[in-house]
Structure formats: structure tokens, C-alpha cells
């Protein structure tokens, strides 16, 4: 896991330097978000001793780190930094049917929330590396589908994404409360209660951040409107040498 994360950090840095060399700026805030996200994910221990520790890991790996990584806009960066041909191939891949289906909020939400339900009702949560990776990937997928700023062709409108987000928050809260009364196999009741409260209230805090991001999009302020392009997709390609060349 740590090796994967270090690789992600290096690739991102390499892409930013490539852009720099071509004289294209990349906002430092996005790079900061990427490195904070990776640092948060690295800080989670691979094998949690108690269920409470595991739950802290769940909040960080499944929600906190993915949110930061989404804000870092890795897809936009890749599209700009890759050579034209590779960037075109990536853009085509993003438009392909499997990717469109996978990144739909409903699919992403079912994978993320469904995975959590399975993990915590069967005791599979103590699975180590794979569980951590699953939490991080589905967390990223869902966060990107709900409030991502990367170009995503066929991303549904805010109404669909709001409904899915509300459903997801509901499932998360219900699962937390369920765990309070029904500890997963092998977990003592007192520990499950602590972990459930952590999941419930910690989850709320992180969901609040996601709701704010979505509402910012729903109700853009007039003073910010001039900075916001009508849709994320053209903005991502705007000023990019890649698309400038490809459209020429």
C-alpha cells in the first residue's frame, strides 16, 4: 500500500514538473491536496489492533484521503502533462462505456456503501491491505462521482448526485447505528459502541465537507460565477497545449 502511495506521489510530482518545464502553471493548492491526501493514507497503519483503530482508518482511507485526492484533480493533470497521443488515448478511455458506467454516482455509491455493509456485517474488515485499498479506491470513486472537478463526460446533473449523496449518507449513518447494537463477529460490544460513534460523528464531519462542495456547485455565487466555467469539462482542457494541438 505504502509503495503504491509513494508511486502516486512521485508520478504527480513528475507531471507537475513536466508542465512547469513547458511553462504551464499548476495551482499549488491542488498539489498540496494530493500530498496531504497521500500523507493521510500513509499514516493509517496497515493492521489495526482494535475495531476502534480500524474505524479511524476507515474514516481516513475511505473518506478523508479520497476527498483530498479528488480535489487535487489528478485526471486534469494527466490530460495536460501526457504527450498528445497518450492524452487522447486517456480521454477516449474516460469516454468508454465501462468507465462511464463505473464512474456513475449510482454505481460508485453502491460499490462504496455496499462494500462497507459487507465488510462490517461479515467481519471481513480485518483483511489488511486489500481492505485498505478497497476503502481508498471506492472512496475516491464515489467522491469523484459526487463532487469531482475533473473532466468526466456524462457526469449526471446535481439533482442525481444530490440524491445519491443523501442516500449514501443515510446508509453510512444507518450502518454506524447498526454496528452500535450489532458488533461484527469477534468484536466486543464496548469496542463496537465506541467505533460506531466514531463512524457516525466522524462520518458526519466528512460528509459535511462533501455537501458544502456540492452546494457550492448548486448555488454558485454571482461574484464567483466569472471564475467558474459553465461545465468542468471544457475548463479542464482550456489553455492546454494538448488540446490546443489536437484541435488544430
Amino acid at each position: 500500500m505504502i509503495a503504491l502511495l509513494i508511486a502516486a506521489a512521485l508520478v504527480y510530482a513528475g507531471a507537475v514538473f513536466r508542465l512547469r518545464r513547458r511553462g504551464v502553471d499548476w495551482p499549488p493548492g491542488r498539489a498540496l491536496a494530493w500530498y496531504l491526501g497521500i500523507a493521510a493514507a500513509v499514516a493509517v497503519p496497515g493492521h489495526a489492533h482494535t475495531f476502534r483503530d480500524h474505524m479511524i482508518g476507515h474514516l481516513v482511507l475511505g473518506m478523508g484521503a479520497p476527498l483530498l485526492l479528488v480535489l487535487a484533480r489528478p485526471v486534469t493533470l494527466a490530460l495536460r502533462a501526457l504527450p498528445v497521443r497518450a492524452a487522447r488515448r486517456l480521454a477516449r478511455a474516460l469516454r468508454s462505456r465501462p468507465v462511464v458506467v463505473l464512474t456513475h454516482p449510482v454505481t460508485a455509491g453502491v460499490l462504496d456503501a455496499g462494500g462497507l455493509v459487507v465488510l462490517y456485517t461479515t467481519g471481513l474488515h480485518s483483511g489488511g491491505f486489500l481492505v485498505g485499498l478497497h476503502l481508498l479506491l471506492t472512496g475516491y470513486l464515489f467522491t469523484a462521482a459526487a463532487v469531482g472537478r475533473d473532466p468526466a463526460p456524462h457526469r449526471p446533473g446535481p439533482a442525481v448526485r444530490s440524491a445519491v449523496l443523501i442516500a449514501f449518507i443515510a446508509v453510512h449513518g444507518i450502518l454506524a447505528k447498526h454496528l452500535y447494537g450489532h458488533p461484527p463477529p469477534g468484536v466486543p460490544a464496548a469496542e463496537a459502541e465506541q467505533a460506531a460513534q466514531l463512524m457516525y460523528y466522524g462520518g458526519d464531519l466528512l460528509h459535511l465537507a462533501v455537501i458544502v462542495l456540492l452546494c457550492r456547485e448548486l448555488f454558485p455565487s454571482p461574484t464567483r460565477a466569472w471564475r467558474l466555467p459553465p461545465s468542468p469539462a471544457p475548463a479542464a482542457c482550456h489553455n492546454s497545449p494538448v488540446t490546443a494541438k489536437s484541435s488544430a
Partner: protein
Amino acid sequence: MRPSNTVSGALLGLGVAAFADETVFHQLLHWHHFYDKSTPAVGLVSDGVFHAVSFFAAVASLFLLASLRRTGSWQPRRWWGALLTAAGVFQLYDGTVQHKLLRLHQIRYDVDVTPYDWTWNIIAVALIVAGVVLLARSRTDRVAEPA
């Protein structure tokens, strides 16, 4: 789409009422818990959905309020009227349907709940009356022209 004073106020009313219920009675006073063991599964699910909706509503309403203020179309009376009415309607619904008809949870356990129930529902009705009065009076308000 023009943001609406009534929608913004009502959304925040719902959000605040739900928030106050959870914070004060569940977490600070421990009168009823977020998981009452006697609560049926349906109660758990409905609570989860309600929490998610009210949470979202509170944030959305504040964004609406911000844009009302910015465009100078905020009508405080109408906004507060909608807020109080929605908070009262929620509380009355909670106090009658959820507590009494569905018996999802009670305000308190191991005591005579009658005085609590009366207090709860009277406050709810008072909120609704105050809200409706404000809404009625707000009809004569004029929208300020944007500067």
C-alpha cells in the same frame, strides 16, 4: 433560478430542529439514544434517511441565504416565518406521529412522559403560530431593489 426566501428558511428550520433534537436530547442529555434497542429496524432506517436529508438541507439553505443576501432579495420576515413554521411542523410531527403513533422512541424513559409530551408539542405549536404570523405579515413586505 431565483433563490426563494421561503425555501431557504424552511430548509434551515428543518435542519435546525433536527440538529437541536439530536444534539440536546441524544448527545447532551442522553434522554433518548441514537440507537434505542426497542426501536424497530424501520425506525433506524427512517432516522438515517431523515438525518441525511436534514443535514443536506441545512447546508443548502445557508448557500441560498448567502445568495439572497448578496442579491439584496432577502426578506427577513418571510425567511424567519418559514424557518419557525418548518421547525414547528417537524417538532409536532416528531412529537405526535413518531413518539405516539409509531412509538419509535419517547422523549424520556422511566418517568411519566405526559408533562414532557405536552411541553414538546406546545412548543411546536407556538413555533408554528409565530411562523405563520410572520409569513402572513411578510405579504405586505416589498422586495428591496438590488443595489
